[in-house]
């Protein structure tokens, strides 16, 4: 592979790193922060399942991003991912909640504007509606899940020590599901913009059963992005995990399980092509496959439980700053992308789009 290709992919990898560093805390933050799960265990489980989710089920949501804007030149994709990464980095530095999903959508729209290509308004509307729906659905899933878990736990009359052991196991299992869903849903944020200009080629592997398995260029691309996410998890997520639990509301390990599971279900709903096929096959309305914010899903679940239980210790001001971040993210990413593409094309003489 040409070295310049790798250089262009670096922005996507940086975005992947940032995603791993930030979003692993949504999955394992409370578990690690409260000492229920060791960081090393959390990091290994999260990394393995993020990679599996990205490679096996990553195609659905990235297809939707492709419909929003098929970035057809590698330098253009580089700048879209870079502007999303810069936005994520800058907003994280300012202490604002940030979503890679919103950053990348803003960047793609920026590329569309710069290249003069139309933005598919239907797809954009679906994406925007999904962003609103994501935390709401997470909240609606979290409440019955919380009630049933509380009912089961209080009626099972488990010994405190055994309950602790089961909770640890459940937190790891929910974390694995969450990491799989995160990898499947959010890999499109990291590598989706490179799909149309993927530098990889398909190759097949002969299996022991006698047939061959085709490892597509997109899967190779997603594997690379998922490895970047895993590196982000191992190198930087511990710091975020140690603080995430206290930011909005302090959670007990069992509530944390409910939140992570609700988050994972939501991400899975917006990712699973299998579910889409099933709904289609039964003539039911399908759920759009859209990259959504893992943080939004977690916040939706926490607020859902908080509102339902009448909890007074939700820090609404923190939620407010998160809301501001959500609105700002796509706009900033869009502006940064347009500016970056201008420089890349006019100063560095790179082809940022094909006519």
């Amino acid at each position: 592979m040409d070295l310049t290709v790798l250089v262009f992919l670096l922005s996507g990898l940086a975005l992947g790193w940032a995603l791993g560093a930030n979003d692993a805390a949504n999955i394992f933050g409370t578990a690690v922060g409260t000492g229920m799960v060791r960081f090393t265990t959390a990091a290994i489980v999260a990394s393995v399942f993020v990679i599996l989710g990205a490679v096996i089920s990553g195609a659905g949501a990235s297809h939707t991003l492709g419909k929003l804007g098929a970035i057809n030149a590698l330098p253009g994709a580089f700048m879209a991912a870079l502007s999303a990464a810069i936005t994520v980095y800058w907003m994280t530095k300012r202490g604002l909640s940030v979503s890679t999903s919103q950053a990348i959508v803003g960047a793609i729209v920026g590329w569309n504007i710069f290249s003069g290509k139309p933005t598919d308004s239907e797809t954009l509307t679906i994406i925007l509606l999904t962003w609103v729906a994501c935390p709401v659905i997470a909240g609606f899933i979290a409440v019955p899940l919380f009630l049933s878990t509380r009912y089961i736990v209080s009626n099972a009359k488990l010994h405190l020590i055994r309950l602790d052991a089961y909770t640890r196991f459940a937190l790891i299992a929910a974390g694995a599901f969450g990491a799989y869903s995160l990898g499947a849903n959010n890999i499109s944020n990291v590598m989706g913009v490179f799909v149309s200009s993927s530098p990889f080629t398909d190759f097949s592997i002969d299996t022991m059963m006698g047939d061959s398995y085709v490892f597509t260029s997109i899967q190779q691309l997603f594997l690379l992005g998922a490895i970047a996410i895993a590196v982000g998890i191992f190198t930087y997520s511990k710091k975020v995990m140690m603080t995430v639990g206290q930011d909005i509301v302090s959670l007990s390990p069992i509530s944390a399980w409910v939140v992570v599971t609700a988050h994972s279900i939501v991400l899975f709903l917006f990712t699973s092509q299998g579910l889409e096929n099933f709904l289609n096959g039964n003539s039911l309305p399908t759920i759009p496959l859209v990259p959504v914010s893992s943080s939004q899903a977690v916040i939706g679940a926490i607020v859902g439980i908080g509102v339902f239980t009448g909890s007074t210790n939700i820090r609404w001001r923190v939620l407010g700053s998160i809301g501001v971040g959500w609105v700002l993210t796509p706009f900033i990413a869009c502006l940064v992308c347009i500016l970056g593409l201008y420089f890349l094309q006019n100063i560095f003489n790179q082809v940022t789009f094909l006519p």
Partner: protein
Amino acid sequence: MNLSAIKIPTLFGRAKKLEAQIDQFLDKVTEAGLIYKSALAVYFDQGLCDDFENYLQRILTIEQSADTLRRDIETKLYEQTLIPELRGDVLGLLEHVDTLINIYEANLFRFSIQTPKIPKIYHHGYTQLSDTAILSVDSLILAVRSFFRDIEAVRDHVTKVMFYESEADQISTKVQREIFTSTLGLARKRHLAYFVEHIDELANTAEDIGDILSILTIKRKI
């Protein structure tokens, strides 16, 4: 493949073993109460005798094994980083419960060393007081077991602890009043009252632990 090497079953196996150890520790307190009751009955019947000393020895053995168990439980809770959110509270609770065995032991030692001469007319009052104090401790042990297994039942048992403590206070006051209105010498009166106070101390300690447990229960529910 060696199945015991798999981490998850080991985790559950260790949890089960620790549960059994906590139950054994609480059993020791109940057992100490039964021995204490028998020892006092023997003392009121025969004074200081071999049977009483045997009971004292048994309670000493129980106290030592309870200490060993408690330390083992504490070490495991820390080494295996179990119940991280409640670990400190649970350790404190077990240490408080351990003081009940110490009180049983210390009271029997006092009888063995000081051999108080308790007039027969007060035997009923002393027995009634010690039985009520033991009931408060037994209720507390049920409350502690419930804290681990059935959080909703803690309140019922703690209510009983409070009731028996209040009963014990009334009996203690009554017996001491009887002692101090008697014609016994002041030194003897003081000596007899000293034993009443120490027997009553069991119920007071059980009540204090019940209060701590009520707070922990609220914390665990959240």
